[in-house]
């Protein structure tokens, strides 16, 4: 039986992992790879890594952080892929088919498109044709407005579209999955925007990953009761050790259709 997925999301901003609140405020959490080590227990079903750097600067030029030096997002993908035997999705800064090719050959399994998809919807089709729909995820950032929601470009500027209509369009264009994020709930810890998930998942047959607002494990359960195929969260997984394992165990013990979590063992996970 196909399982529902639990997905930790890492946000990278100018070389450090950050927590985000409302797409506006960012708190630094440390090195790009230490966080991967913390989150990539056997309990995570997939890892989403989003680069939200305003400019492509990754090397902190600091040796005191005790992490491997890297200069590009490709270096980071390669490091993560070497140690992380699960599906990896990378997003941020993708503007060309060559950007996708580089990320996939460095070890990513999927990429997410946001700004480029809005500016040039035909790019979704081109990417799906070249690499297969299964590796093209379109991320949709939605914000509540009078009478519904609006899609935001890069999380910042209104794109003049409703998320359900945009989701249908990206499905028709050949996307393989939708990562739906609520700007209002981002960093709020008040739970998913369940109405938004219902609205968008009802409009498409594509798998949908819900993101934005998880403040406790019950919020993940609420997400699993919707038509979403996967529940994702970012900030909450940073607060304590073994958080992904604890979350997964909670969902498994409550009888949700998820993979049984196993504590970390075997191969070294040091990054």
């Amino acid at each position, binding site marked *: *039986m*196909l*399982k529902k*997925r639990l997905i930790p999301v890492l946000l990278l901003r100018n070389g450090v992992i950050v927590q985000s609140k409302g797409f506006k405020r960012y708190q630094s959490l440390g090195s790009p790879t230490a966080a991967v080590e913390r989150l990539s227990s*056997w309990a995570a*079903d997939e890892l989403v890594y989003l680069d939200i750097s305003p400019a492509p600067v990754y090397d902190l030029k600091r040796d005191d952080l005790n992490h491997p030096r890297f200069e590009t997002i490709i270096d980071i993908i390669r490091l993560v*892929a*070497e*140690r992380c*035997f*699960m*599906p990896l999705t990378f997003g941020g800064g993708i503007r060309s088919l060559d950007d996708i090719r580089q990320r*996939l*050959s*460095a*070890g990513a*399994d999927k990429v997410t498109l946001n700004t480029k998809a809005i500016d040039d919807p035909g790019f979704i089709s081109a990417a799906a044709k070249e*690499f*297969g*729909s*299964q590796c093209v995820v379109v991320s949709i950032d939605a914000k509540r407005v009078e009478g519904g929601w609006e899609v935001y470009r890069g999380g910042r500027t209104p794109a003049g579209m409703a998320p359900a209509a945009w989701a249908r369009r990206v499905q028709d264009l050949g996307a*393989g*999955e939708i990562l739906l994020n609520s700007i209002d709930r981002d960093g709020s810890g008040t739970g998913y925007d369940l109405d938004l998930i219902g609205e968008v998942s009802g409009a498409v*047959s*594509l*798998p949908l990953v819900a993101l934005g607002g998880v403040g406790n494990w019950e919020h993940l359960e609420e997400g699993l009761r919707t038509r979403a*195929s996967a529940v994702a969260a970012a900030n909450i997984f940073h607060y304590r050790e073994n958080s992904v394992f604890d979350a997964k165990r909670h969902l498994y013990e409550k009888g949700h259709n998820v*993979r*049984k979590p*196993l504590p970390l*063992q*075997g*191969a070294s996970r040091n990054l």
Partner: protein
Amino acid sequence: MTTGVVDYGSGNFASVWNAVAAVSGDVKRVARPEDLGGCSHVVLPGVGAFAAAMRKLEKTGILEALSAEAAAGRIQLLGICVGMQVLASRGLEFEECRGMGLVKGTVEAISVDRSRFALPHMGWNSLSDLGAAPLFRHMEGEPSFYFVHSFHLKCEDPDARSVFCEYGGVRVTAAVSKGNVHGVQFHPEKSQDNGLQLLRNFIAL
């Protein structure tokens, strides 16, 4: 006991290499037919379409040598995803195409109701009725693996044994073994502990 990983331009070579290297100290890149020399085990990765994979394998010259070594029982062979599919007699993706013919069968689209179930079949799915299949030793219950595919191998070989998962009411072929020839439709290199265990089991054959 050298394990070769075939590099013929398949997109998942790096991931498969990383996973095999994590469980074995003796891994070798196989990019030309002569690289097969000294390999007791060979892993054949693969993503993309059936015919494209066959063409690439032919172009490197590995196809013929690999088929001969496997047919003669001189190596243990493990095909992954499209690397499994090309073990079959033929594939029907986009165009009918001959496969390596090591396992009698046809690679065809998963026949789910497309209005209700999306293709590709993507995500973690559990396998049942493993019996004593050697590739699945040391795994508890119904182990889950990571799948991404729209086609699967319908085996018609009386000497082969298949393992299945279920998707949209369809029995989907997840693994096949026939003597020294094995294939898995899922991605062990992306299936965490179960995936690494499967690779360990393969190398122990």
